[in-house]
């Protein structure tokens, strides 16, 4: 595989790289509406887009992380409801994950990725819950759709379920993608 790839023209390789990246996002999007047995807890599934953003941002700059978060957040808005936006939490996840500079401080393994995903999943749900709370506080009383108590009670439940599931399933996305990106960087480096 490696040998053949090095013979490819570099723009073909780059196109393949982008194809794989976009394809993996698309796969994550397709898995989002499913609730397979073993993949759901209290009717909550893993947050696949969050796992993808973490996998993407771990070895990239904050800007790249933010852009990936923005892109996936907009798509998720379209798939559910645009208000409050999912982009905000995913952008924050992208920036913070890139900021962690994992390779400098933490050894490369699944456990650390799972830990990062666990923390980020809790953070993402908290940001969404904050957005909902802000809506409730700013809305006129008769337009209130979710009251504060129920938002944070629900937040506790889904933050924990989503964090556990996302961190357990994180290697499924992270391992192949990370391996490919590493391989690609190795091949692409000499000519670039």
């Amino acid at each position, binding site marked *: 595989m490696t040998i053949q790839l090095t013979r490819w023209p570099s723009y073909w390789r780059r196109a393949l790289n982008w194809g794989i990246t976009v394809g993996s996002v698309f796969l994550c999007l397709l898995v989002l*509406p*499913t609730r397979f047995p073993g993949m759901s807890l209290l009717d909550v599934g893993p947050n696949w887009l969050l796992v993808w953003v973490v996998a993407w941002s771990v070895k990239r700059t904050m800007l790249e992380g933010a852009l990936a978060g923005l892109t996936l957040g907009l*798509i998720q808005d*379209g*798939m*559910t409801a*645009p208000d409050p936006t999912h982009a905000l939490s995913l952008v924050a996840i992208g920036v913070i994950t890139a900021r962690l500079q994992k390779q400098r401080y933490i050894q490369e393994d699944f456990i650390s990725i799972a830990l990062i995903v666990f923390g980020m999943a809790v953070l993402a749900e908290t940001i969404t819950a904050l957005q909902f709370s802000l809506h409730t506080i700013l809305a006129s009383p008769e337009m209130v*759709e*979710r009251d504060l108590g129920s938002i944070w009670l629900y937040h506790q439940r889904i933050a924990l379920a989503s964090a556990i599931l996302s961190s357990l399933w994180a290697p499924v996305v992270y391992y192949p993608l990370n391996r490919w990106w590493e391989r690609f960087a190795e091949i692409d480096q000499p000519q670039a």
Partner: protein
Amino acid sequence: MYVVRRWWDRNGIRLGLVGLALGSAWLIRQTQGALIYEVYRGFSNPFVGRPVETTATKDPKVLELEQQLVELQSQNRQLQELLGYIQQNPGKGTVAPVIGRSADHWWQQVILGRGERDGIQVGAIVSGEGGIVGRVVQVTPHTSRVLLISDPTSQIGVTVSRSRNMGYIRGQSANRVIMEFFDKVPDVRPGDVVSTSSYSQLFPPGLPVGIVESVNLNKSPAPEAVVELSTPISRLEWVVVSTNPKAGGTELSPQENLDGSQNSDPDPLGDNQ
């Protein structure tokens, strides 16, 4: 000039790709993920079985009650015709498989494997075995997205069938919903049947919703009851989508359609008993 060109040579492609990614994400957002749901349906289609026929397992008691119901319904219709009362009945339904759930954790939605091509329109009523389940908020050619009544933004005007006490229900992201009464001292007790009221702007009246499980009359600002939905929302497999006679009459703003908020009439209706 040279500096700009050098910068462009180095970053032009990257900038283009970023623009492309953001542009297509925006497009997907504006089309409400239609492309993704269409592809998703294509993948899930082979796994959708056939609706299970439950006729064989009906016991004689149920059959007897069903026959009584048909009799009462036709009597009711005759009496309404005598009174000159015109009611639009919900149209005949389309049976649709549930192929997915909400794409995030905060919204209670399901994805159906039938769409515009099968005659489903935004606002159509979705019911499961036992009562209403939700309302179609978005359609693509082959899929449709349903906002469940268990979603906190789903607020539906309902009435207690026995005493005609009015109120509205609010989703709790579970199989139980909270009913808030407009009356200070409503006549309600556990076991009462709750159905949609004629004040609901989005649902036709008389559709079964659930059964009152417990009542809290001391709740402020309004008395509350916990209503158990008669349909097992978390285990939906097949649903019936029927056209909504009220969908045409109610002018839904695009924003309402987008975020699926349903505003039942919040006017105090206590004097309408």
